[in-house]
Structures are given as C-alpha cells and as structure tokens.
C-alpha cells in the first residue's frame, strides 16, 4: 500500500521544501508574485490547506465548514491583541486552543455521520457560525464592520511606550508586516508542514488511512474509528485556527466573511487542485489559487491592451475583449476552467501531473510499473 519511506528522504524533502519556501521572495519575483502580501497569503493558505488535507486527504472526510475554524482563530487572535497586547505568540497559541475546542464540539456531533451527511453537517455548522458572527454576536465580532484593534483597548502587557505606535502586531519589536510578517508565517508553515509530515508517517496516520480505505472492515476488526477521526478533525481545526491567527497577525482585522461557505469551498478547491492526500499538493493548490486571485483579478483592459499591443489593431480589439472575460472580475472563470481541466485530466491534482512527468523520465532507465490505481504521489 504505502511505500516505505526512509526517514532520511523525509528530512531531505523537508529541507528542500524549507529552502524553497524561505527563498520564495527571490524566485517568485519574476512572475510578479514576489511581494509580501501575496507571499504571506501563500504561507497562510498553504498552512490552512495542509491542515484540511490531514482530515480530507487521510480520512476521506470532506469537511465543508473549515472556514469556521479560520474565523474562530482570527477573532481569538484579534481579541488577544486587544486584551493582552500585540505580541503574535499568545495570539497564535490562544487561537489554536480556541479553534481546537470549537472543532472538538463540532466534530463530536458531525462525525456521527459520514459521507455527504458529514459534509452537510459541517457546512451547516459553519454557516451557523458565520450568521452568528454577522448578527447575534456583533458585540464580540463587530459584525460586518470587522473586528479591529483600537487605541482605547486595554492591551495589558504592552508597555505604554508604544501606545501611539501603529497598531500592528510585533514580535519583540519586529513589526509583523511586509517581509518580516512573511518570514513569521513561513516559519509557522514549516513547523506545520513538519508536523503534518510526521503524522503522515506515524501509526496514527496509517490508522487514518485505514478509515479512508474501509471503515466497516476496521469496525469488524474491533477498532473504533471515531477517536481517530475526531483527533484528525481537531488537529485539522487547529491548523485552520492557526492560519486564521496568522491572517490577523499580518493584518489585525477579522471579518465575518472569512467564515462564509465560499471560504470553506476555497480550501476544498485548493486541496483537490493540488492533490488530496499528498503532502505538497495542498500547498501548491493554495498558492495557485491565491496567485490567480491576486494577479488575474488585477488585469484590466489597459494592461491587456499593453500585453497584446504587438497585434495589429483589427486583431487586438477582439483578442482583448475575449481575454477580458477571463481576467479582472472574471478571474473566477479562469480558475473554473483550470479546475475543470485538472479534475478531468489529472484527478490526483497537480501532484499527479508531477508524478506522471516523473514517470516519463523514469521510463528510459527502468521498466514501467503497471500503474493500476493512481496512487497519490505521497
């Protein structure tokens, strides 16, 4: 089933991944993605998708309400800023704890069902949380306006010296914006990735895969899958909470729209696009979606005309008007087309593409495996 992977290779993978993440500002610059805000998004949503993948990729439980934990993490982090001070570390820890508790409650109820019923239950819970944050809980969440840190907040542990400084979270004097913020997120992503890697390799991870493979058989063997799935759900919720906290650490504002079902859907898209059940896939998927969202939505007719200015006029206008449908406000269309292509031709996501290319290279050196089921790359 799972090929035995030596620890050395794991460390090598982790090392390469770490270097790739930390040098992102350099190698992403030529494609226009090397600016701090987008890099932060890559790291944050990479973490979110990694956590989601621990649940969906390993146990096969498709949660449609993961954004709720993201939102809970965000609100906790901002409250921690408001009450305790602008240090990101307590904010992150509290966010993980709160979202963990929240996930425990939701998971306890939702995991009584599996398949589509589980998805619908989580979706319902998330939508409930969203509506609560939007209306009933406005004293806590500040509703549509979004929760912000104000000058008048107590911030117990902040020295009064930086009382009139900008209200940005800072780690012992380093302001968590720009590249500093990115590196903070990147380090958290690496820690999260490392833990995910350990979980993938652990006996616990094997049990989770067993849940995905055949839960009935597991039951007959005398194993109760519920504690395993619940643990996976809580861990996954904690990842989401941490990602939510990071969003607020780089930009201290929490809005209810983070919990909307579209946000939950987005992380599902990221994971499937990249390759569910693989370690790197969700991170790639997250990066791809965020890249599209930020870069394609920014194109307007002016930039298109510049891009196609080499064409003669009678061609330029039709080309621009067709291409215009796919950029700017129409970037979702591009994403949709891409998603369809990937799901149809590469059901295993980008990672399946990668392994297919890998197989092409291998074909010359050794005989090809009879590849029956498309095993995930990792």
């Amino acid at each position, binding site marked *: 089933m799972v*090929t035995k*992977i030596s620890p050395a*290779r794991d460390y*090598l993978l982790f090392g*390469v991944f770490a270097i*790739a993440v930390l040098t992102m500002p350099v190698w992403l610059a030529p*494609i*226009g*993605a090397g*600016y*701090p*805000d987008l890099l932060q*998004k890559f790291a944050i949503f990479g973490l979110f998708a990694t956590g989601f993948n621990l649940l969906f990729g390993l146990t096969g439980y498709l949660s449609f309400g993961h954004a709720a934990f993201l939102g809970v993490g965000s609100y906790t982090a901002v409250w921690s800023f408001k009450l305790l001070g602008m240090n990101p570390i307590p904010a992150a820890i509290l966010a993980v704890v709160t979202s963990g508790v929240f996930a425990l409650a939701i998971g306890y109820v939702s995991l009584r069902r599996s398949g589509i019923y589980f998805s619908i239950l989580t979706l319902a819970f998330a939508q409930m949380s969203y*509506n609560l944050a*939007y*209306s009933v809980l*406005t004293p806590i969440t500040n*509703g*549509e*306006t*979004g929760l*912000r840190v104000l*000058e008048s907040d107590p911030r117990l542990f902040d020295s009064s010296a930086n009382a009139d400084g*900008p*209200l940005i979270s800072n780690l012992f004097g380093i302001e968590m*914006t*720009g590249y500093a913020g990115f590196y903070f997120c990147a380090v958290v992503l690496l820690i999260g990735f490392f833990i995910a890697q350990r979980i993938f390799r652990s006996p616990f991870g094997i049990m989770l895969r067993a849940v995905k493979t055949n839960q009935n058989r597991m039951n007959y063997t005398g194993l109760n899958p519920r504690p395993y799935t619940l643990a996976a759900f809580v861990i996954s919720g904690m990842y989401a909470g941490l990602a939510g906290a990071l*969003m607020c650490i780089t*930009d201290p504002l929490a*809005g209810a*729209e*983070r919990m909307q079902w579209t946000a939950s859907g987005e992380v599902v898209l990221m994971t499937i696009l990249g390759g569910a059940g693989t*370690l*790197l896939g969700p991170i*790639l998927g997250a*990066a*791809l979606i965020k*890249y599209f969202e*930020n*870069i394609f*939505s*920014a194109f*307007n007719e*002016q930039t298109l005309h510049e*891009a196609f200015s080499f064409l003669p006029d009678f061609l330029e206008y039709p080309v621009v008007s067709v291409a215009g449908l796919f950029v700017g*406000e129409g970037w979702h269309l591009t994403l949709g087309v891409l998603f369809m292509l990937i799901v149809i031709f590469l059901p295993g996501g*980008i*990672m399946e*593409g*990668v*392994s297919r*290319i*890998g*197989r092409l290279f*291998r074909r010359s050196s*050794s*005989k090809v*495996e009879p590849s029956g089921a498309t095993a995930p*790359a*990792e």
Partner: protein
Amino acid sequence: MSLIRKPLNRRSILRAGAVGGAALATPTIFTSKVWSAGYLNEPTGAEVILGFNVPQTGAYADEGADELRAYQLAVKHLNGEGDGGMLNTFSSKALQGNGVNGKKVAYVTGDTQTKSDAARASAKRMIEKDGAVMITGGSSSGVAIAVQSLCQEAGVIFMAGLTHSNDTTGKDKRKNGFRHFFNTEMSGAALAPVLKNAFGTDRTAYHLTADYTWGWSQEGSIKKYTEGMGWNTAAAVRTPLGAGDFSQYITPVLNSGADVLVLNHYGKDMVNSLTQAVQFGLRDKQVNGKDFAIVVPLYSRLMAQGAGENVKGIFGSTNWHWSLQDEGSKAFVKSFGQEYGFPPSQAAHTTYCQALLYADAAQRAGTFEPCALAAALEGFEFDGMGNGPTLYRAEDHQCFKDVLVVKGKENPSSQFDVLEVVEVTPRSQVEYPAEMLGGELGACNNGA
C-alpha cells in the same frame, strides 16, 4: 521489480518546486517596485500610478462599476485627452491637462468585493507590487475605514470613494485619508427641516438599519435630528447586509404604532426593502390619523432606478445629482455622457472629484509625497465641481458643501430622471464642530 528503489514519489516531489513554478509561470505584467529614500512608491519614471479599488462584484457592484468609469474618465482628462470635463470649471487652475507634475497618470485596479479582507488585500497588492502612490475608491464605509487605516500604516494617501458613515472622518479618521462625500450627520441636518415641513413634528419613526458601521451611523444621526424636532422612535431594528428578503422585518412595522419607516439601507438592500415595504401596502395605510410615510436618508439615482415606481414621493438626501445646472455638473455630465452614453451617478461624481482633487493637490505641492500633499489638501477651498463652494476641512479631512434633499419624481421623463431636487441645504446649515465626532487624525505617514 524496481519497487524498492523506486524513488518516483520522492524525486517527483523534489521536482515539484520546478513544476509548480512552471504552472505558475503564466504571463503576467511585472511592474517593478520602486523604493527610494524619499517616500513610499515615489514615482521615478515618466508615470505616476494610482490605485482604483472598487467593488466589481457583490451588493455594491453597480456603484463600483460607475466609480471605475469615472476614474478612467478622470485619468483621461488629467492626461489631456477628451474634453477636459470639470478641469475647465474647477476653480484651481494648477492642472494643465498634461499629466501631474510632468508625469503621465497611469492606474491599476482592484476588486474590493465589498469585503474588508478582500479590499485590504487588493489595496496591499497595489501598494506593494504595483507601486501605487495613492489608493482611492470603495463603496462601503466598512471597506473605506479598513482601507483607510491600511493606507495610513503603509504610508500612502487614501481618497475615500462612496462612504457615508460619520466614522470615516469621525472616530476612525486618519491623517492620510480624505473624504469628499458627505456623511450621515449632514444628511440628518439637511433632511430634518424638510421632513418637518412635509410630515409635521408629531410622528413616530421605525428604523430598519443595515447592520454595520454606516447603518449604525445613519440611524444615530437620523434619530438625533428627528427626535430633536419632536418625533418619537418606536424601534430600531438591525438587518444583515445583503439580506435579500426583508418581509420578516417589515411585518412588525405594521403593528408597532409607528407612522414613518426610515430605511437605513443602501444599494440592492434598499431596492429590496423599499419594494417589499410598498408591496406590503405600508404607503396606503393610515396610522394615528396620518398617512404612513417612508424615508430613505441616503438616496442614489442607481438605487432609485432599481426601485422603479416605488420611489415616487419618497424623501432622501444625496451628495450630487446629474440634473444640477451649475457649470461644473453640466461639464461633467456632458463628458461622462459622451463617453458612456448615460448620466453619471453620485458615486461616479465623488470619485471623479477625488481623483481631480488629488491630482490638483499634487500639482500644487509639486510632489506626490503624502505629507506635503495632505498639507495642500487641508483647508483647501474650491469651487466648480458641482457642489458650490467647498472646503476640505483641515481638522477632520471632511469636505463641507451644500447637501441636496431629493424626492422620487412623480412623473419621470426618462429612466434616468427619477429624482427631483427638493431643496439645496446650504453648507452653513450642515456644518458641525470637528470634535463632535471624536477620533484623532494622528501624524501623517510617508511610509519611507
């Protein structure tokens, strides 16, 4: 077999970076970021880049589309294309129609989606990646406040678009942020006398309020002024933004004993709630021996068009209306109409003015440096932009100008001619002391 030494998965992962990069290497326009010692995003080439951050999707998308049209028109006029629009009527003659400070005006756009998160992300992109030296736009106060504080922290100028909440230049005001649009305080002050004449002083109002900063602000202002002239407030109910169906909120109005319904809604929300209120027969009712009335404190032509027949005779206030007959308004309506084939909305007007005011301040200051530019805007008196003599007050960066009280027209002559101006409330009547709304401007930020 080669199962054991089959490192396919491993190696493929090592290649993932390269392939992922290839997947990402979709064509894109790479604008180099220019950092220099002076201030953030100082334009060093032949162009200056402005960031237009408007809702292109969501509940306020109509307003956003109109704002973007106005911005594009403003850029044309600044660069000397087209007929020059309001540049010809604007009292300051610093701009010559040859760009600003010798630089051609270029722009980047972003979609706020009427969400604070998305708006901040796209503003950040424009500042960090595209090198925008000013951000402008927005069609919601929540978004405007979020983006304004972002611009303050980053160190660029923010020229607010359509935002009507008191807080934008009240308790959330910032040194780097400026607002041309009026606010709920002015709406209240302008509307109250008209409502008094129309409905008398013995009325009971029922508020339905969009549940976010603008709704709260407007509810507060209208309550303050109506209660000041003797009205009672039966209840004020908060409704979620973008609710769509307001029937559950409208039914209780019938039995509340109120005889005036105040709809603190905007955009599609207002279209829906007003339509439903009329369908429920509120306007045909008699309560306490008086005709039931509906008031929509913030009106726009786009909304009135959306609500159709239902707006007839309903009072509200607006920042500007295309039927105004001063030279500035006529010039703007003419060039906007020539370009797009229909008259501009108040959202288009305010954003067009903001773009011109920014460019003019930069020209007068001789630089795009935020602090110098802010100083040039503070206390700036101007005319010829459709609102009569206007002041950019230094204390809170709020524009003071006449406020229009309008009414849904009984006999519209065209699909755009849906509002009639009832009264132009003079600026002196809507002025208030800057301290009244609280907040601190703080220090300006050059972002260097």
